[in-house]
């Protein structure tokens, strides 16, 4: 076993590195806070009380464990390995995002913080953050690109109903990465009382680690559920990758199971080429530094960050979590991609065969699962992370299919 493999469990290292990726690239003003957060997280992680409180909320408020469901008709459709869905779309608020938000808000309260901020693209993380803020009675400000506010009106209204302030971001291109810039600016301005709940495995160390840990409940449950149903480990796991939180949550508990193949699926948008009309940071980007860490990024020669594109707003981010960059670099995980059209087709197929409308994000994983199932063949099995439900996407899908909704 190469050395890299042995150290998996212990990453990131004390500098927040996954190999050459990760780190803490933030303004000096934030460095003491980032160190504080790390200390507080280590303490919380070691606390049985914290764990018990989080588990109770995951059970009674989120509805965990989420089921592992055998997608029998989809399996038959492809005629290969058995396909299981990890049903994160059944969580409260309809996606995996809440697993992380709960963990972070409990941590925030432990640290005595009294105000929560978050960034959001599609609005899913914003809704999940607004939800936990309502539950625990903390004021919540969600930064959202003005362009995204226009594209995602239902989620904007949801956040407002939950009592959050949605602050439009007009700087830059007015989408997710600019919302993240603005959240970082707010944090640097309100360091005393504010906790920044980052929505994916991005940001400076320790965020990629703690978001991964809070999302790993997905993989831990799925691993045990699969063993219970099949009496063995799955042969592959697969998930869509935006920033990469639902994917790493599923993958991480399987990293040391070398027999389990790991597949991430990035958004290929209108195709991965030099027009950069995609969001596949690993498939079509290069390493660089953005939002606190070193990772794969969509960028030009001068290191300017490019906007990218995906039909799914939740995958429309020019970077990817540093641990994915690392798993790619050592070959432990394989990163595939799916185009807008492939995701749309998979969205419909899943609805028609399984009676489940998946989130467009999750539909990217669904678009590749057939290839993997056929490649593995009968007698094998795959777990796919169904990270969210598709209700939020019906307007986008209708639009793409040329249907007008009233």
């Amino acid at each position, binding site marked *: 076993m190469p050395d890299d493999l042995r150290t998996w469990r212990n990453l990131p290292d004390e500098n927040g590195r996954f190999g050459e990726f990760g780190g803490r690239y933030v303004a000096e003003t934030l460095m003491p806070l980032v160190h504080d957060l790390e200390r507080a997280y280590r303490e919380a992680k070691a606390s049985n009380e914290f764990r018990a409180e989080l588990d109770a909320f995951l059970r009674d408020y989120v509805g965990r464990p989420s089921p592992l469901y055998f997608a029998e008709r989809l399996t038959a459709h492809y005629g290969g390995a058995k396909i299981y869905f990890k049903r994160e779309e059944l969580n409260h608020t309809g996606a995996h995002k809440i697993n992380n938000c709960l963990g972070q808000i409990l941590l925030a309260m432990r640290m005595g913080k009294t105000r929560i901020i978050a960034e959001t693209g599609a609005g899913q993380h914003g809704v999940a953050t607004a939800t936990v803020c309502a539950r625990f009675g903390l004021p919540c400000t969600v930064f959202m690109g003005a362009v995204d506010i226009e594209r995602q009106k239902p989620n904007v209204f949801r956040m407002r109903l939950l009592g959050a302030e949605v602050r439009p971001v007009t700087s830059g291109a007015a989408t997710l990465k600019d919302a993240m810039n603005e959240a970082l*600016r707010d944090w640097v301005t309100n360091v005393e009382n504010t906790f920044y709940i980052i929505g994916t495995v991005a940001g400076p160390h320790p965020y990629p680690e703690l978001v991964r840990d809070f999302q790993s409940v997905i993989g831990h449950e799925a691993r045990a559920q699969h063993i219970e149903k099949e009496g063995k480990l799955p042969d592959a796991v697969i998930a869509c990758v935006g920033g990469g939180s639902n994917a790493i949550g599923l993958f991480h508990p399987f990293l040391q199971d070398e027999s389990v193949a790991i597949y991430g699926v990035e958004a290929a948008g209108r195709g991965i080429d030099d027009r950069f009309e995609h969001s596949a940071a690993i498939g079509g980007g290069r390493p660089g530094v953005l939002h606190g860490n070193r990772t794969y990024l969509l960028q030009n020669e001068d290191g300017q960050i490019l906007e990218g594109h995906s039909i799914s707003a939740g995958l429309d981010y020019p970077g990817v979590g540093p641990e994915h960059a690392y798993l790619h670099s050592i070959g432990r995980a394989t990163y595939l991609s799916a185009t807008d059209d492939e995701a749309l087709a998979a969205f419909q197929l899943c609805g028609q065969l399984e009676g489940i409308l998946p989130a467009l994000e999750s539909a990217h994983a669904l678009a590749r699962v057939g290839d993997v199932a056929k490649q593995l063949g009968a007698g094998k099995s795959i777990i796919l992370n169904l990270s969210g439900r598709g209700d939020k996407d019906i307007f986008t899908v209708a639009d793409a299919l040329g249907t007008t909704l009233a």
Partner: protein
Amino acid sequence: MSERLAARFAALRAQNRAALIAYVMADDPNPDVSLDILRALPQAGADIIELGFPFTDPMADGPSIQRAGLRSLKAGGSLKRTLALLAKFREEDQATPVILMGYANPIEQMGYADFAAAAKFAGADGLIAVDIPPEEDSPLRAALQNENIALIRMATPTTDAARLPKILEGASGFVYYVSVTGVTGAKAIGPAAAREAVQRIKRATDLPVAVGFGVRDAESARAIAEVADAVVVGSAFVDEIAKAVDADRIQDAPQNVAHKVKLLADAVHGAARTAQQESARA
């Protein structure tokens, strides 16, 4: 450290004066006017120039400098072009120290060694990399050291007694005290607190201490200049460029910026300083 920078601080010390460090963004609003602006700065009284290079995602900057970056990018600005602009400026001015300021990724893409060599060649004396804190800066620091370029480190209101020594340990050129928790140009400085912080830092280092991020007007510039070795002003100058652009009169930008620089330079240079402060550590 760069000799030009050391010489400038030594000369200022001999005159018991504080320095005005003037920040502008390279290629804002376009390369030609930007060169004129750069050339006007020393004449108007700027002692040191901080030359920003553009980045799409300037997470520590307020609206003024964000927009300056966008104007620069729109005009074709880049790190390479910034160095070309500096080289042109150096054709006529070999005395004014120039500190480059920007974000990590353009430097990462050029590569640390190539960047250091190119910056030296262009005539840079220092670098402020906003999102490369001490925990991450050793490879860059080594590359810059090879070329005698100072890596300027920052202290902030969140820097406590335990962290300050870590910041000072690898600092060179000067120490940049970020006087407000916030982004550039947004909050106004509280001169009293900033003065206290400067004195605290000066007790711990022999390096000059500059104060920036919240200084916009002559009054606060003067108050800071009474105790600090340098006062950094940026957004107030960049706003003059924005006004000229908005009024469709970019040809006026150099003159308008120069006017503002003179106002602040006079305040900084006229600050009453006691000789004792200069030798506080002697």
